[in-house]
């Protein structure tokens, strides 16, 4: 630790701290544009100037270490001043230079009201300009469908370049020319090829990069803000949903060090228009082959008629990827009341089950734990599109000091180098049997991490592959008291919650695949749009969008999306998180648990809760860990994994392929979004170009 005096306050900070960090530790606020905690230090905006006693000039505090300061003549700690008149004058000078070329277009700028430059100009700016030359003019750039540019406003902080290069791992952005003529651009204005690019617009301290889909739609002070979680993938990123009136206007990331740091994927952010397009806002009943608008009582009566005449073994329920724990609990309660055991939330055909222990289906190492792993084996996964923020963590780990990373599965660009071991289960068996040198690497590691993705566990022999991976984890000692490196990567936000609830077929009951293939006569479909249901069955679709499930349905019950209801989601780590309502569902649509509660009444099996609070009381009584919001209940660890490893089975010889074919179109909300459609088309073209 090193002592330093900031404005007369002596603080004790680690010597590797910069002056800016030391000043913040001492409670002094330092203005900055280019400095960002999660990016490398550039030191080019000069806004963070402070006075160091003994230094002839003000120094940039973001780029000056505490250990670089000289002690006083009698060995006193070094002293810095952040509020002296020199500092104020220096910052005013910097601000004046920054404003020389900055256009005065705040009234038409989307950054207005959330602009660092605007805020800091209030503190350090002057009200007039002494500059009588022409302002610099910079042509705007095309950077793809998500980022709008207005390059006259750029102050050359290079945060966007550093973000795309360091965090997103695509070297697309750069600065060409130099000095006053410097311009931020991609090579010949190619669209950015990252699934995290929108974060660059968040990082922009001015209005040079703004979000194109949201352009001119709102002012930040008009929005009411609701903290929530993202359900586009199983990472469960913390988000803030901003709404105006009934409409969600934008989604922003929230800082959550354990999950998403402060990034979210483009899909999490820009599905906003999908929340209002293609919505189911009224119940429908199929009459003579055509879906017709109905009232709630009519829809319920149609269901009751079919259910009453059907044997309970011929009834089934499939739950989709966006269902909250409350919805699943209500549906499971209803099915149990009807005596139905055919329930399944695994529409991808995976065979994970709570019967094998909670550790058998969780990302046990935790996302933050990736940073501690010292050898990583990725099995059957493309984390870049299946869980982009997990990939960001692996990349962050790789940037700290590259650990050995190996991949079994599809050979894809993960933004960091890895050893490619092979394509499928055979290679995994080779590694487990010691026929591959990577086994020794894993054995030699203190905290080996084995990530098993959907490409591995969702195949025909998924359970055997999962078991084989667990065997490997046990063999290399990945499971100990303080570390569990066996980590399953999910892609569906509802999956872990459903497995925790036991939303899987009972003894001898039908799986989702079997139900969809026509083994049941009445199928209750709770927002499962990724599965093809064979003709024949009477399908009740409860969901939000006119997607695949609704087209096949005989009765449609309009539900609420994750921004329109309060719901619990469990992410791939097993972290219980709660999404909150930011807006109301359109038209006659209702919250899903309430629909199920009303339906249960019609079916003659009234569910024992009349409010969400009552539902949650019962839920927490049966599954206490759901009550511990934002925490991970400790899993059964080694015992569970040994049970999974003992399952054995033949993993087969198939190559692992990711079920996520198109990152931008993985769920009905995203498929309804025009922005996502545009991104998807662009990404397809980029892939075709790369293939040439």
């Amino acid at each position, binding site marked *: 630790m090193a002592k330093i005096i900031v404005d007369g306050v002596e603080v004790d900070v680690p010597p590797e701290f910069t002056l800016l960090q030391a000043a913040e530790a001492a409670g002094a606020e330092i203005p900055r544009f280019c400095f960002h905690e999660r990016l490398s230090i550039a030191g080019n905006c000069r806004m963070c100037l402070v006075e160091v006693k003994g230094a002839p000039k003000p120094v940039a505090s973001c780029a000056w270490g505490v250990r670089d300061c000289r002690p006083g003549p009698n060995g006193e700690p070094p002293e810095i001043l952040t509020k002296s008149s020199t500092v104020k004058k220096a910052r005013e000078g910097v601000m004046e230079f920054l404003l020389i070329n900055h256009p005065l277009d705040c009234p038409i700028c989307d950054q207005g009201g959330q602009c660092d430059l605007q805020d800091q100009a209030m503190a350090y700016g002057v009200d007039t300009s002494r500059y009588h030359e022409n302002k610099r003019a910079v042509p705007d750039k095309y950077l793809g469908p998500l980022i709008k540019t207005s390059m006259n406003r750029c102050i050359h902080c290079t945060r966007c370049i550093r973000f795309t290069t360091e965090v997103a791992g695509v070297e697309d*952005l*750069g600065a*060409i020319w130099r000095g006053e003529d410097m311009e931020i651009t991609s090579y010949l204005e190619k669209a950015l090829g990252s699934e995290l690019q929108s974060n660059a617009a968040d990082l922009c301290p001015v209005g040079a990069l703004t979000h194109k889909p949201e352009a001119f739609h709102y002012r930040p002070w008009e929005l009411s803000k609701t903290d929530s979680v993202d359900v586009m993938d199983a990472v469960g990123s913390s988000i803030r949903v901003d709404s105006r009136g009934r409409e969600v206007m934008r989604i922003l990331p929230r800082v959550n060090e354990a999950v998403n740091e402060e990034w979210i994927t483009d899909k999490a952010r820009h599905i906003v228009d999908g929340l209002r397009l293609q919505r189911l806002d009224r119940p429908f009943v199929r009459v003579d082959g055509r879906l017709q608008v109905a009232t709630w009582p009519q829809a319920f009566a149609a269901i009751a008629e079919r259910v009453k005449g059907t044997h309970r073994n011929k009834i089934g329920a499939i739950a989709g990827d966006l269902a909250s724990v409350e919805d699943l609990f209500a549906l499971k309660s209803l099915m149990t009341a009807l005596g139905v055991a055919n329930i399944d939330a695994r529409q991808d055909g995976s065979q994970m089950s709570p019967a094998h222990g909670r550790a058998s289906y969780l990302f046990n190492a935790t996302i933050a734990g990736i940073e501690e792993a010292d050898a990583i084996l990725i099995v059957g996964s493309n984390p870049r599109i299946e869980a982009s923020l997990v990939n960001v963590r692996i990349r962050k780990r790789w940037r700290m000091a590259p650990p050995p990373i190996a991949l079994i599965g599809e050979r894809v660009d993960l933004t960091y180098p890895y050893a490619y071991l092979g394509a499928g289960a055979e290679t995994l068996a080779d590694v487990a049997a010691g026929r591959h040198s990577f086994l020794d690497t894993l054995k030699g590691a203190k905290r080996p991490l084995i990530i098993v993705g959907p490409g591995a566990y969702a195949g025909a022999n998924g359970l055997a592959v999962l078991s084989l991976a667990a065997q490997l984890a046990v063999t290399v000692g990945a499971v100990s008291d303080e570390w569990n490196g066996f980590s399953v990567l999910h892609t569906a936000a509802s999956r872990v919650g459903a497995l925790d609830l036991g939303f899987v077929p009972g003894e001898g009951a039908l799986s989702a695949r079997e139900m969809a293939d026509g083994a049941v006569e009445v199928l209750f479909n709770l927002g499962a749009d990724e599965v093809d249901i064979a003709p024949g069955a009477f399908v009740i679709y409860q969901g939000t969008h006119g997607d695949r499930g609704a087209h096949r349905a005989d009765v449609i019950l309009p539900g609420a999306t994750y921004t329109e209801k309060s719901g619990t989601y469990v992410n791939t780590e097993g972290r219980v998180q709660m999404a909150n309502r930011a807006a109301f569902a359109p038209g006659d649509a209702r919250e899903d648990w309430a629909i199920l509660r009303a339906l249960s009444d019609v079916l003659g099996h009234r569910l024992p809760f009349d409010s*969400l*609070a009552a539902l949650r009381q019962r839920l927490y009584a049966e599954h206490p860990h759901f009550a511990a919001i934002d925490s991970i209940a400790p899993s059964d660890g080694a015992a569970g994994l040994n049970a999974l490893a003992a399952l054995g089975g033949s993993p087969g010889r198939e190559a692992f392929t990711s079920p996520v074919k198109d990152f931008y179109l993985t769920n009905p909300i995203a498929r309804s979004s025009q922005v996502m459609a545009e991104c998807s088309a662009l990404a397809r073209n980029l892939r075709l170009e790369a293939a040439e």
Partner: protein
Amino acid sequence: MAVRRLAPDDIQPKSFAFSPENEIFAQEQIAKYPPGRQASAVIPLLWRAQEQTGGWLPRKAIEAIAVRLDMPDIRVLEVATFYTMFNLDPVGKHFIQFCGTTPCALRGAGEIKKILERRVGEQSHVSADGNFSWLEVECLGACCNAPMVQINHDYYEDLAPENFEKLLDDLAAGRPVKPGPQSGRRSSEPADAVKTLTDPALYDGSVVGAWRKRFEEEAIKAVETGEAANATATAAANPKPAKPDAGRAIGTESADTPAKRVKEGDAPVSAAERKDAADQTRASVDQTSKGAVPTPQSDKSYGATPSKPGSGQATPDAPTTPVAGTPPSDAPARRDGSESKPDVVVDPTKKPS
């Protein structure tokens, strides 16, 4: 510096590949750096590519070098655009870099520039015959032979309108030309007959201390002629202003401020003004009717007002995110959606129509 762009597509070559000798050069350059650091060779490779293409860098060359050095295209473009010695547009067979910095300008670079504009045309444009293009650059470091230009790899110095015209004629006609001074000088020796270094006084010790002797002699001379006394007298009688404003507008004092009045010995505020200020009838804001609240301009509220589901504005009256670890049922003021929407009303007896 004018805004520069890559050359238009119609003049861009369709492909680029290093010639065999440049390929060997590239391999040598890359071999200089440890594996993984091959990007360090980007500048030599760009330079060779520019020479090979006749003085400019086509887009394909930038991309070929990016592939060669395993760099993203944008990183090579950054280097190529940062350095002004990389030309991104075609140049003439004789690419003239004309020095326009002060020493050359003092020695007549303006005349040279006029000739360039007349004979070659606008800056950064290739002449019709393809022989010439020119660019004004900053100091090339040959000030003792000013004015000068650099044509391709050679300096042409001591230019004058006549010899520069001749130089251009010769280059256009393909005649051999002599690089270096065009005035007959060998290098940067004195232009006239002065032979300072051959003066024997330099070597006999007589110049040691000569500068001081000269000052002393001048001082004595000034005293003898009375010039020094004269200057002293004039300076005392008619002093020069210490800091002339040099024609700039200088700040004038404010017309009537309390500070000015204090300076002039008056009271900062007069009693009459105090009385005026206290007069409520003269106040610009009516402060008598305290407690009256202005009526809101609309029923929209952006503050923490009670929820108005009627207008669709959901305003949480408590933090919406629970404290970690709190069971949601225990969280205060839980909003679960049930309070604002009516329950689904179902009539089980009714059949669908």
